[in-house]
Structures are given as structure tokens and as C-alpha cells.
């Protein structure tokens, strides 16, 4: 007789998958081979033929060399919520991400929300998002996106979540959260209503808007915030837009990225985690390692120009699979400030971009590339 609650085959599968992936996230390549071989052996010995089973994978985590332990955070980003009565698809997707994070074992230290919680910055969209995020069992660190901001210039968002620019320390790592979606005033001269302004910014390919910036004020704040840190201090920056210049027509771009990078230059290692691009996106500029986040709502196509060399493209999403190309993910922060970035692509195998891949400028541990890349 079974004891405890009944678990369906699907639930067991998902639990095994989660446990296995959690463990795999901590492996380097050599260890992975060992595990693979061991797995193959166990599978053969047990006569298991189901290739979908994760059961045989057991990974023992080893303590990290050097000071401090690596720790894990989760991320959810770009949910673009409409009111539930208008569109429940994006709402369900965010709830799926919340379930993903709550099912992580061990639980992550905290969750980063990467911006664009709302689609049109409306109070009921932001309220709905805040309500759903309350179901997370671990603390959430909020970042703002342009879709949250340009209806009321961030008033409702600040009411709910506080100031958009802040920093904190966690287990010896300094974290900075920026509002990188500051746009020059394009609306006053054209006499746009707040909703017209919002809809202009909400169109990714709408050329009537300005470029994203961090702006003088925040750059001054950032300089001051980082003043006390030693150059070897591990530093992680969260920004909604990529803090580099990828493709201007879609604001895959921060106009004062060079100035921001200059402030970060004196550190040995800096990691920037950004939203907005809705895709697997990897870049390295000198000491700064950049990782994109997946959206829970929809994937963006890769930009027609400027794709960073280190980016391993995610597979072309299948339009017939409504959540393909979407997802959430995990970030394992190492004591040196570099991260392993796990893209938890829903309905696909997750992809882990290890810190060694970027540290070796792409020569080691390259994630498996997809056969179906962009047109």
C-alpha cells in the first residue's frame, strides 16, 4: 500500500527533474562526465529503459574552494501582465514561474524579479503581479522595467515595491539594482496622454521613443555606492536593459552603457543580469559578464545585428507550443562574483551557461547549440 499523498507519474517526473537539475547546476564538466557514466551504469544495472527518468542521478555537492560558499538565487522576469479579465495567458505563465521557484529544493536565497511585471503600467496590472509574487516562499528583489513605468512615471510601482534604485549585500556579494529604462522626454512636445506615452514605450519597435539610459543621477549614485568596495569585491548588477549596446531600434541598448561600464571597470569581476531581451543572451566586455533572462510571456527574436559572439542561441521557439521559448531560471553566485546562469526553458531541456564558459572566453564548457537558429 502506498503511504503519504498520491503522486502522479508527471509529478514524480517533475520532482526528479528538479532534483537532478539542481544538482547538475553545481557540476563542472569533468564531474558531469563521471555522473553521466555512473548514470549509464546504474541504468544498465537496473534494466531501466525509460530515457526520461532522472532517478539515477545523484550528485554530491562539494564545498567551493576559497572563502564563502556559492549560493543560488532564482529569477522571474518580463511577465507583461494584462488584467486577468483581458488576458489570462500571461497571468498563468507568471503563476507557473512562481510554482517553479517554490518547488526548488533547497530553496533559493532570494528571487530577482527582472522588470516588466505589467504590460501597460496600470495599477490593476501591477497589483495583480504583486499579489501573485506574494505566493513566493522566499524574499523577492524587485527591478523595474519600462512597461511598469511610463503610464504614471513609476508612481504605482514605487508605492508597491519602493525605490527602483538600491543596493544590498548578501553572503559577501554586493548587489546593485538599477533603473536602466530612463528615457528623455519625447512626450511633452508631442502632447501625448500618459497612455499614449505608455503605448509608445510598450512597442518594442516603436521609433518615436528615446533610448534607455541609466542617467547622470543614478550613475553618480552608483559611483558613490561602490566607493567603499575593494576591486576584488564580488559585484552583481541587475538592470532591466542590457548594460551594453546591442541593437538600438529595439532598445536592446543602454545609451550611457559606456559610462556605466567605466564605473565598473576597476573591479576584477562584475556580473550584470538583465531582462528586456526575452532570450538566452550572453556577452562579456572585459571584466563584465552579461547574462539575459527569459520572459514568462513571450520570446523575442534575436536582433538582426549585433548579436554577441559568446551568445549561444536558444532554439527557435515553436509557435505551436504556447510557452516555448519562455521560462525562468536560476543563478548560482560564486564567491568570486561570477555566476552560473541556468535558463529553465519551459517545455525544453534547461541550458546552463557556466562561469567557466565566459571566463575562458568561450573556449571551455560551451553550452550545446541548437540546430534551429534564427532565420
Amino acid at each position, binding site marked *: 500500500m502506498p503511504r503519504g499523498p498520491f503522486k502522479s507519474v508527471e509529478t514524480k517526473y517533475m520532482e526528479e527533474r528538479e532534483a537532478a537539475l539542481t544538482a547538475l547546476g553545481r557540476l563542472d564538466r569533468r564531474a558531469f562526465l563521471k555522473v553521466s557514466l555512473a548514470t549509464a551504469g546504474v541504468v544498465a544495472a537496473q534494466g531501466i529503459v525509460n530515457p526520461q527518468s532522472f532517478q539515477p542521478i545523484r550528485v554530491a555537492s562539494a564545498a567551493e574552494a576559497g572563502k564563502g560558499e556559492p549560493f543560488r538565487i532564482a529569477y522571474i522576469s518580463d511577465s507583461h501582465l494584462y488584467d486577468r479579465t483581458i488576458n489570462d495567458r500571461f497571468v498563468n505563465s507568471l503563476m507557473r514561474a512562481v510554482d517553479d521557484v517554490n518547488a526548488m529544493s533547497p530553496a533559493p536565497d532570494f528571487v530577482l524579479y527582472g522588470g516588466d511585471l505589467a504590460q501597460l503600467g496600470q495599477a490593476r496590472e501591477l497589483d495583480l503581479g504583486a499579489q501573485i509574487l506574494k505566493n513566493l516562499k522566499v524574499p523577492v528583489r524587485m527591478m523595474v522595467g519600462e512597461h511598469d513605468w511610463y503610464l504614471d512615471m513609476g508612481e504605482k510601482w514605487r508605492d508597491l515595491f519602493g525605490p527602483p534604485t538600491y543596493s544590498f549585500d548578501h553572503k559577501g556579494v554586493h548587489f546593485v539594482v538599477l533603473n536602466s529604462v530612463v528615457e528623455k522626454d519625447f512626450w511633452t512636445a508631442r502632447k501625448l496622454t500618459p497612455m499614449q506615452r505608455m503605448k509608445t514605450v510598450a512597442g518594442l*519597435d516603436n*521609433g518615436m521613443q528615446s533610448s534607455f539610459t541609466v542617467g547622470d543621477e543614478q550613475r553618480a549614485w552608483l559611483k558613490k555606492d561602490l566607493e567603499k568596495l575593494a576591486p576584488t569585491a564580488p559585484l552583481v548588477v541587475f538592470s532591466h536593459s542590457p548594460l551594453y549596446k546591442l541593437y538600438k*531600434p*529595439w532598445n536592446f541598448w543602454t545609451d550611457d552603457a559606456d559610462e556605466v561600464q567605466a564605473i565598473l571597470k576597476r573591479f576584477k569581476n562584475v556580473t550584470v543580469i538583465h531582462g528586456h531581451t526575452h532570450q538566452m543572451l550572453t556577452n562579456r566586455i572585459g571584466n563584465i559578464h552579461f547574462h539575459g533572462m527569459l520572459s514568462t510571456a513571450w520570446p523575442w527574436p534575436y536582433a538582426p545585428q549585433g548579436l554577441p559572439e559568446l551568445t549561444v542561441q536558444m532554439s527557435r521557439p515553436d509557435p*505551436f507550443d504556447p510557452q516555448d521559448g519562455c521560462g525562468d531560471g536560476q543563478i548560482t553566485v560564486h564567491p568570486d562574483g561570477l555566476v552560473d546562469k541556468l535558463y529553465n526553458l519551459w517545455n525544453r531541456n534547461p541550458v546552463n551557461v557556466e562561469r567557466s564558459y565566459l571566463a575562458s572566453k568561450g573556449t571551455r564548457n560551451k553550452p550545446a547549440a541548437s540546430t534551429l537558429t534564427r532565420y
Partner: protein
Amino acid sequence: MNTRLPFALLAVLAAACGGALSESASSGTPERPTQTSATNPGVVPTSTATSGNPAPPSAPNAPNAEGVDVLLCDGKTKANFATGTPGNQIASALMNEWLRKNPDAHWESNERASHGLQPASDNKELVGKASPGQTYGHISEQDVALWKIETERLALAGSRVFHSADELGSTVAVSCDMCHPHAENTHPETYPKFQAQLGRVVLLRDMINWCMQHPVRAEPLSADDPRMRAMEAYIYAQRRGKTLEYGKH
């Protein structure tokens, strides 16, 4: 379904062609205002506010201390001006009022400024190179300009539909550009092709309709629906210069 492809431009042309003036004050010989620009309709004196038939300028009118009522040629836009107001001022005031009521009048240039458009071929190399004795092939600068403007207009109309959940009739506030900014990742050059998920060969318009029914949650469009034609135009326009590779995956 709301088909709202705007034809406001016609109205602009109509408005530019002239205005109707109601001269109700008795002020001797009325001065004929001069047309100052294309956007300032010429103001033609008439005996009544609603009639388009001009009365002889010398016809006496009932005295009116409140000035002059002027009616725009749309037959609706009307305003009162002090006697002696220069015609160009009257015309701009009326046109501004008309534009306020017709904010979509400049939809074409607005659409172009917002979302851009790959240019249509300009065909300039064809101008003035006809064979002697042939009518076909006599191509003027006006011809090629017209071809370009009209072709781009259809693509711009498509861009407008593509970027508007309302025009598409989406029941979930989703528009095409939410997954396909600048029509990226629509790859019209690969159709027709065998669409594995559907198990049959499809055209671009079949995939447009698939998107209409699924992510956009709207009614599918008939092949000759003006919105379908316009969206096909836009999607092809945006892939200008790409090699046709039908059947490619």
C-alpha cells in the same frame, strides 16, 4: 470585427480643395481671400452657411453684429470670425479644428515615423528611357513616384494592422509585433512550405491566420480581406532583399 483602415486622406484632400464662407455681415464688397498654402483652404464667399452655391458678391445680406460664420467644405466644421479676419487665419483655424476631430488624418506619416518601413524600389532607372514609337514604357518621374507612394501606403496600412490589437480584432490584447518586432522572424521568403505541425503545405497567409486564431485569439481573415492584403504587403516589404527560398525550414 472592426475594419478601420482609415481613408482620412481623402478628407484631407477634400478639405484642401476649398472652404465655404458665409458672409452674413453687410460690409460692402467682400474681399476675396487668397490661398496661402495647400493646407489653408481657399475661402469662397457664399450666401448661406450650408449651400455650396456661391451667391453674387454684391448680394446684400442681413446685418449680423456677431461677425462671420464660416463653414469648412466637410459641411460640418463651422466657426465664427470677426469681420475682416484675414482668410488664411480663418482657414488655419478651421483646418486645426478639423484635424482635432480627425486625429488619424496623418496616419501614414505617423505610422512611418513610429515603426519605419523598408523602402519600395524607386524604379528611377526607368524614367525617360522609352523606345521610340512605343507608348508602353514611357515612364515619367511622376509615374515612379506614384508607384512607390501607393505601394508603400499598402505596406504602411499593413504595419498599422500588424501593430494594433484592435485592428486585428484580438480578444486578448495581443498584436503581431509583440512577438515579431519590425516583422522579424516572419520569414515570408520561406513559404510555401510543409508546416510540420499542421501536416500540410501552407502559404504565408495561412500562418498569419494561424497566429490570428491562436496567440492573437481573433477571427481568421479571408484571403482578400483588406487587412490580410495589407499585412502580407507589410511582411514582404520588411524582408526586402532576402532571397526567396520556398520550402526552407
